[in-house]
């Protein structure tokens, strides 16, 4: 019996190391294994034989781990896994690919700047097209990595070409507000185009959509880190070369745009290759900031409820509110993507609900003020875009609040809430695309 115990322990350790399987799963599997062995022993097999047959019936650990990973794809993002040889090889070849795509993006940005005669001139088309200089390379990078079939390559390419046509055919007025809005919304719309190759074309899969949400958060954090590092590097370079009389600023205006473009790809590569190696940052930051934001939002609601919104309300404040709501949405999404869906409500869920409900109240106030303003002064491109974004966020947060209430009351599953968010993602993409495509002609490109 001694030997069977050690065999089971060994088997257990092996299964525990497989990606996608966690400790509770192994408890459950071990219980199953022991049952099976006991039954086989009762049928006359020796303990050793019983163990062998039971393990065989359990199935190959690779296949098992794959099934578990498919069901719990979120775990792959969190688990500390020792890399196999195969994995290391892929990461190494990925490095070269990353450099190529990052360089290409950096070079294209420079070509565009040369064409625009930057930095002396900063024509608006340069800013308007910024997303188109970089994100096609990110899409291409993922299309190669995911080994997309030709049809999906074409779909992705068509989306970018259409975007380029729409953005550049429109005759914007000088100092056009719609052009600024397009410059702001195009990168968002294109980011969702990148989702297509990222998900390997399976955009209907809710699990893959959640993966894309995770990717977006991690990418953002890596990008900020790279930007900080780049800033320190540039600052130190300037400080060191200053005595020699070299004008670092003139170099910087060339290095920074290229660096910013290349970093988009490098950050994506970091997320891809570190995905399985380190604990993700986004969930940790979410844990840290959700309570703080909940307090801040609740206090703001209280303050505005007392003072009223009327006088304080202006255009800058609308952007601040929109940014705030986006942050709340981000916190909700990452809190969710990092959560084990099978556990019951925790205190974090309650805090999150406080944040969401406060944000909702704020959003309703902003909407009220905005509608009043539109009633007085009529629609402008900026007001329309802000109103639309607010409505899109309002519906999302209202749905999220309702479903988390039901979840906390034990009448709904977390799964519903996750579904709601992943189902809603295309609405954001559609709204961004609407601003890019329909808003400028609607307002005669003013």
């Amino acid at each position, binding site marked *: 019996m001694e030997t069977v115990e050690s065999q089971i322990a060994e088997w257990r350790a092996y299964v525990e190391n497989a990606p996608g399987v966690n400790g509770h799963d192994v408890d459950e599997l071990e*219980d199953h294994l022991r049952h099976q062995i006991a039954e086989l022993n009762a049928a006359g097999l020796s303990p050793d034989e019983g163990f062998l047959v039971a393990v065989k019936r359990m199935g190959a650990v690779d296949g098992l781990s794959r099934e578990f990973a498919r069901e719990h794809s979120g775990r792959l993002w969190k688990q500390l896994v020792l890399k196999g040889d195969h994995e290391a090889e892929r990461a190494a070849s990925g490095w070269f690919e990353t450099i190529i795509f990052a360089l290409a993006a950096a070079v294209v940005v420079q070509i565009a700047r040369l064409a625009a005669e930057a930095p002396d001139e900063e024509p608006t088309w340069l800013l308007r097209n910024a997303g188109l200089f970089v994100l096609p390379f990110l899409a291409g990078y993922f299309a190669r990595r995911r080994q997309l079939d030709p049809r999906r390559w074409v779909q992705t390419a068509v989306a970018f070409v259409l975007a380029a046509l729409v953005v550049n055919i429109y005759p914007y007025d000088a100092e056009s507000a719609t052009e600024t809005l397009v410059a702001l919304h195009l990168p968002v719309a294109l980011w969702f185009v990148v989702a297509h190759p990222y998900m390997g074309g399976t955009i209907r899969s809710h699990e893959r959509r959640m993966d894309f949400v995770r990717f977006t958060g991690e990418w953002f954090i890596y990008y900020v880190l790279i930007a900080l590092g780049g800033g320190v590097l540039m600052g130190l370079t300037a400080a060191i070369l200053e005595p020699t009389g070299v004008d670092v600023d003139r170099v910087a205006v060339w290095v920074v745009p290229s660096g910013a473009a290349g970093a988009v790809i490098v950050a994506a590569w970091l997320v891809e290759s570190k995905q399985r190696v380190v604990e993700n940052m986004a969930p940790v930051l979410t844990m840290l900031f959700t309570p703080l934001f909940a307090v801040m939002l609740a206090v703001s609601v209280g303050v505005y409820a007392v003072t009223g919104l009327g006088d304080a309300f202006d255009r800058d404040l609308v952007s601040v509110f929109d940014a705030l709501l986006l942050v709340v949405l981000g916190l909700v999404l990452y809190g969710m993507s990092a959560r084990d869906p099978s556990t019951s409500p925790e205190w974090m869920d309650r805090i999150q609900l406080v944040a969401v409900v406060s944000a909702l109240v704020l959003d309703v106030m902003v909407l009220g003020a905005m509608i009043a303003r539109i009633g007085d002064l009529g629609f402008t491109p900026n007001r329309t875009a802000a109103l639309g974004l607010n409505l899109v966020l309002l519906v999302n947060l209202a749905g999220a609040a309702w479903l988390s209430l039901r979840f906390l009351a034990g009448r709904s599953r977390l*799964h519903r809430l996750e579904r709601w968010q992943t189902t809603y993602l295309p609405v954001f993409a559609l709204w961004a695309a609407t601003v890019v495509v329909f808003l400028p002609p609607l307002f005669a490109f003013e």
Partner: protein
Amino acid sequence: MHIDKDLIAASATPLVLAILANGESYGYAILKRVRALSGGELEWTDGMLYPLLHRLDRLGYVTTEWRAPLQGRRRKYYEITDDGRAALADQQRQWATVTRALNDIWPRSGGLRTALGEA
């Protein structure tokens, strides 16, 4: 008799839900029941049952509970929910349609209808 892998996969969810509809159970017992029901013809890879059960849990078709008996190891029990019963009823309708269609086109042996009628 060898039963096609896809068919086994497709029948797994209704089978497990149907077993749980007769009362809560745990992994090993569910698998034993599947073997008994099919006379050993439905050969599952044991481990694959668990990702399936976890999926049912995520979809809200079952609830789970770890229980530690006075003696022995703790064990995870699965109990079907109302959503699970609804899903089972839906699955039954789908399978009934499929078997009806197959029965109509195949020479009447009678075996298929009785076998599935009982499940």
